[in-house]
Structures are given as C-alpha cells and as structure tokens.
C-alpha cells in the first residue's frame, strides 16, 4: 500500500521533471510551426507557393554574411524590446509601451549626439547609454507610478503614453529639432565621432573580414543587457521580489514585499531596456533622429518575450528568429512582389496569438501526451 503511494509520488515527480524541460523546449517550436502553418495558409490564399516563400525567406535571412549581419541588426532591436516586455511580465505587468519608451530613449541619445561632437568615443557611448536608458525609464515611470499609487491599469496607460510620445516627438521634430531649410522632419546628421562603431570595422581592425551591414556595437550592449536581466531576475533580491509579486501578490505582501516600489522599479528597468534600443537605431545606424524610428520594434518585443518564455536566453533566440523574419521578409518581397513585408507583421501577430493567447490550448494536450 505504502509503496504504491510512494511509486505514485515518484512517478508524478519524474513526469514533472521531464515536463520541466519538455514544455519550455517543445512548446515554442510547436507554436512557431503552428504560426508558420497559418501564415502558409495565407500565402496559399494569395496564390503563391508557401514552400518557395519559406526557402526565399530563410536564404534571405541567412544566405550570405551580409544577410546574417542584417538579421542580427534587427535582432539587436528585438533583444532590447523583448527584455523590456519580459521584465514587466515577470511582475505580472504588461508593458505595451516599449514603443514609446524606445522613442523617448532616442530623444536622449539624439540630444546628446547633436551636442557631443568631438568627445572621446568611450565617453559618448557611455553617456548615450545612460541617456537612452533614462529617457525610456522616465517614460515608463509615469504609468508605473500611476499603477502603483493610483491603481490605473498599466496596459491602458502605456498605450496612451505611446500616442502621447508620438505626438510629443512629432512636435519636437517638426517644430524644434528639424534641420533648418529641410522638408522632412528629422535632425541634422550627427558628427561622425559620435557614431557607434560598425562591427565590420571593429572586426577588420582585429584582422577579420566580415560582410558589411548596419550591425554595430549595440549588439554587444544587447547581449550584456540580457546577462544583466538574468542576474537581476534570478540572482538579486529585487528580482526575487518581482517574481514573487507576479506569482502571488497576496503572498508577496505577506512576505514583506512592497508591491508599489517593486512595480515602479521593474517598470523603470523595463522602460530603460526599451530606451536602449535607440542606441542601435539612432546612434548606430541612422545617425540622426527621425520620425517614428522605433518602427514597431516595441510591439515585436511582445512576440519575442512570449516566444522566449520571458527568459533572456529564449529572448535572444526569439529575437534572432524575428530578426530573420524581418530581413528575410524584405528579401522575399523582391522576389515575390505579392508577398509584401506586411507578411512578416502577420507572422509576428500569429506568433503572439499562438504563443501568448492560446498557450493553454496547446500546453494541456502536450502535457497529457508527454505524461
């Protein structure tokens, strides 16, 4: 009798431990396949061959050194915004405002670079990183404070803050920061001494030849940010408090965690990560501040965080995948003009639907199957 119980317990424990890696490892793959199948149906509907489209997509993203460079350049943006969304998720908060936070981070970087011509590179990069993070954090702080102290739902306020950011930046670019005598609303080009070094230049100085691409040093910053987020979430008291709050607010409060402070700190870190995205886009590639430079990366971050299961490692992998979709998608639209870049947006939306909203729909049958 007793041994039967023990055997039962042991069986359930071993199936748990098996599940522990099966679910995180298999689910994203199954989700991705499902999202791609749905997209293939759309491609079919338009009258193109899904297999050929997938092949063109993959070779466009990884077919040459340049292509890989572009893929990683897009991925850099998505690592930042994915980490931003994930940090908030761990506390049970949904930060839809990464787009606006990245935009405001860009304002910090832009103002610095406009004035910092001739400074030593290391100083400019450091100052820019601080200002990018500060801009993003400031824009996330207000919704965070309102959530923590006034109970306003962070989802709605961050959406509103995206629109307010867009209006503010349009105003600044059209009326204040615009280069005089120019029609399009963007600043003058920054002094070349403030540009982030391109990775192919860095590699050449080390004796390697890699393909030319917009890939720049912000990739390193992105990976470092991933490591910092990992330490923050799983190896600091603040990260523990945040995760405890996300699991069970009542228990967290009982354990002496102050929800208001935790929420404000986490959202500010989330905003700072989103703001850092502008290092890549403004300082590394465009070398000027221009209208709507985040270009939807804040929303891609939602897909990346969900797909990467809110873990930095998963986020880096998911960001590379989404980066490949963006790069491959633009190559694909050259060869198959009916498949515009909008297809990538469709796939991204379907990934969020399948990985996020329908996660339970797949997990239960999978767990039943594995058991």
């Amino acid at each position, binding site marked *: 009798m007793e041994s039967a119980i023990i055997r039962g317990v042991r069986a359930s424990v071993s199936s748990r431990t098996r599940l522990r890696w099966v679910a995180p490892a298999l689910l994203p793959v199954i989700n991705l396949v499902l999202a791609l199948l749905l997209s293939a149906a759309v491609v079919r509907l*338009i009258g193109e061959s899904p297999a050929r489209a997938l092949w063109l997509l993959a070779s466009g993203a990884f077919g040459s050194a340049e292509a890989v460079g572009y893929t990683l350049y897009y991925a850099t943006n998505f690592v930042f915004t994915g980490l931003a969304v994930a940090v908030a998720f761990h506390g049970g908060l949904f930060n839809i405002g990464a787009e606006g936070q990245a935009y405001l981070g860009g304002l910090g970087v832009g103002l610095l670079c406009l004035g910092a011509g001739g400074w030593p590179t290391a100083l400019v990069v450091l100052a820019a990183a601080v200002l990018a993070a500060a801009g993003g954090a400031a824009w996330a702080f207000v919704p965070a404070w309102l959530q923590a102290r*006034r109970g306003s*739902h962070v989802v709605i*306020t961050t959406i509103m803050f995206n629109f307010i950011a867009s209006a503010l930046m349009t105003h600044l670019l059209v009326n204040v920061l615009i280069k005089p005598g120019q029609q399009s609303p963007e600043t003058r080009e920054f002094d070349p001494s403030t540009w982030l070094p391109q990775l192919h230049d860095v590699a050449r100085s080390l004796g390697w030849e890699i393909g030319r691409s917009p890939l720049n040093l912000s990739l390193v910053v992105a990976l470092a940010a991933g490591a910092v987020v990992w330490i923050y979430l799983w190896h600091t008291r603040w990260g523990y408090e945040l995760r405890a709050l996300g699991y069970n607010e009542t228990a967290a409060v009982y354990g002496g965690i102050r929800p208001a402070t935790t929420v404000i700190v986490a959202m500010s870190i989330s905003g700072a990560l989103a703001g850092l995205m502008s290092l890549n886009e403004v300082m590394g590639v465009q070398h000027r501040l221009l209208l709507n430079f985040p270009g939807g990366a804040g929303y891609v971050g939602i897909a990346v965080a969900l797909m990467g299961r809110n873990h930095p490692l998963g986020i880096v992998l998911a960001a590379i995948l989404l980066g490949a979709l963006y790069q491959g998608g633009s190559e694909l639209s050259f060869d198959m003009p*009916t498949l515009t870049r909008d297809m990538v947006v469709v796939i991204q939306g379907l990934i969020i*639907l399948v990985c996020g*909203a329908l996660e339970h729909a797949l997990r239960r049958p999978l767990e039943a199957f594995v058991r």
Partner: protein
Amino acid sequence: MSETWLLVALLAAATARGAAPLALAALGGLFAERSGIVDIGLEGKMLASAFMAAATAATTGSAWAGLGAGVAASVLVSLVHGFACITHAGNQVVSGMALNITLSGLTAMLGSAWFHEGGQTPLLGPGARFAPIELPGAVTLAGVPAVGTVYREVVSGHNLLVYVAAAAVPMVAWIVYRTRFGLRLRAVGENPDAVDTAGISVSATRYRALAMSGVLCGVSGAYLSIAHHASFIRDMSAGKGYLALAALIFGQWRPWPTLGACLLFAFADVIQARLQGTPLPLVGVVPVQLIQAIPYILTVCLLAGFVGRAVAPRAIGVPYLKER
C-alpha cells in the same frame, strides 16, 4: 451673425462625422468589457471590417454587400478573440494585441495582392458607398435663421451610418439596462460565479457579447472605408480603435457618457485641424500635436483618478474557469 452660426454648425457637423466611428467601436467595446472581456482588439476589428467592406464594395459595386462583408469579418475576428480568451482562458490583452498586429499586416498584404495598388483598394463609385442623405425639409427650412442652418448643416446631410451610430447609443443603453440579456451581460462582468450558479452559461453570454462587439466594430470599420472615405487605405483606422477604448473608459463603461467622450475627442480633432497655425489669444500658436494628444492625456488623468474615477467591471480580464 449668420456667419458665426454657419461656422458653429460646420464644426458641429464635422464633430458628428468624427465621433460616429468612435462611438460605434466604443459601444462595441462596451458589450465586451461589460461582460468581463478586455477588448483591446477594437482597432483590429475596425481594420478587418474597413478592408473587407471596401474590397467587397469594389468588386460587387454594392455598399450594402460591403457593409455585410465588413460586419462578418469583424464578427469573425471577435470570435477568434473569444476562442482564445473564453474557450482557452488565454490572456485577453495578449490576444487583443495579437489580433491588432495580425490584421494590420493581413489587410495590407491581402490588399496589395488582390488589387495591386500598394495595399489600397480601388476608389469606389457613387453606388458602392453610403452617400450623404438630404433629410426632408432641409432645403425648405434653410431660409429660417439659426434653426434652418443648424437643421441643414448639423442634422441633415450625413451618410446613413452616422444616423446608425446616433441610433446605436439609445439602443445599446436599452439592451444593457432594460433587457434580460443586458442584465446577464452586466452580471457576468461583475460576478460570473453568481451567474453560473443561477444556471446561465458564462461562456455563451460572453461569446454573445463579443459577437455584438464584432457587429458594432464592423459598422464602424465600414463607415471608414465605404462611407466617410471611398477606399481602404493601409492602417486606415490609425489608432481610432484605441481612441474608442479610451472613450469607453472615459465614459466609465456607460453608453451615454461614452458618447459624450467620443464627441469630446472628435471635437478636439476638428479644432486641431482648424487651428493649424492660427494663434490663440494669450497662449499664441498651440502646436497641433499637443491638441491631438489631449484625448490620451485626459484618459490617463481619469484613470489616475484626477478627474472623476473610472471603476471597471469587477471581473474584467479574469478568465472564468468553471469548476469541474
């Protein structure tokens, strides 16, 4: 004097035209949110409908067929939202965002594949869209000072869907507050356990609410592409779905105050278009972007409890899991 009247009348008419799609979508959202389902997907539903309405009207030449197709597309999107959030207890905000993003891409992609105009649909002829309607007596009364002008410019001369929007407000108020379905809808959004105990299906009620949301967002989307404009343009809802959501919150999830918020937001938009570059007394030239941001800032202030207090339906955002 009549000049001023005419200006006021024109501003009022433009406000009504701007408020119509907001009110329709916001009332749709009211059904969903009052039943306890967060409806961030208003934007996606409007886009789906705007595209299908324009595509169908362009191919068939019939505005009514367009409206039907638009509403059907929007209801379908709404039911997908229900499938994720009700049947599979998924995160409602995530599902709404997913649908918004998917439809933003899908409409542009199908548009360029089917019509080869870079995501746009062909310009619609007169029969394929809802034209302005001259109400009886508008011309005869035009000579009467004030009343004639107001009647002719503000009340008469809109397309059919503006009147549908106006009629939708009392209709929705009646359904929500005076019918059996309305009572169940509100109960399911406040205390689903009690409704379940009474033997009424929480899921079925919420699915019905989402279908209603689909219908109203469908009319709203069709308004954009086959009544107000004469074709679908990529991302033509341009944040109106989120603005409608803001209006719904600003109206505290009640039909008449929501209409008020829609009129306020539409008026801000009309003023912003009129004020471009015109200096105001005391403050000088106000940047138009600032006026555009007013609805969003107001909503944040309301949510923060600085202007009144927004109290959401109690069970909103929480998936209902029936005990087994």
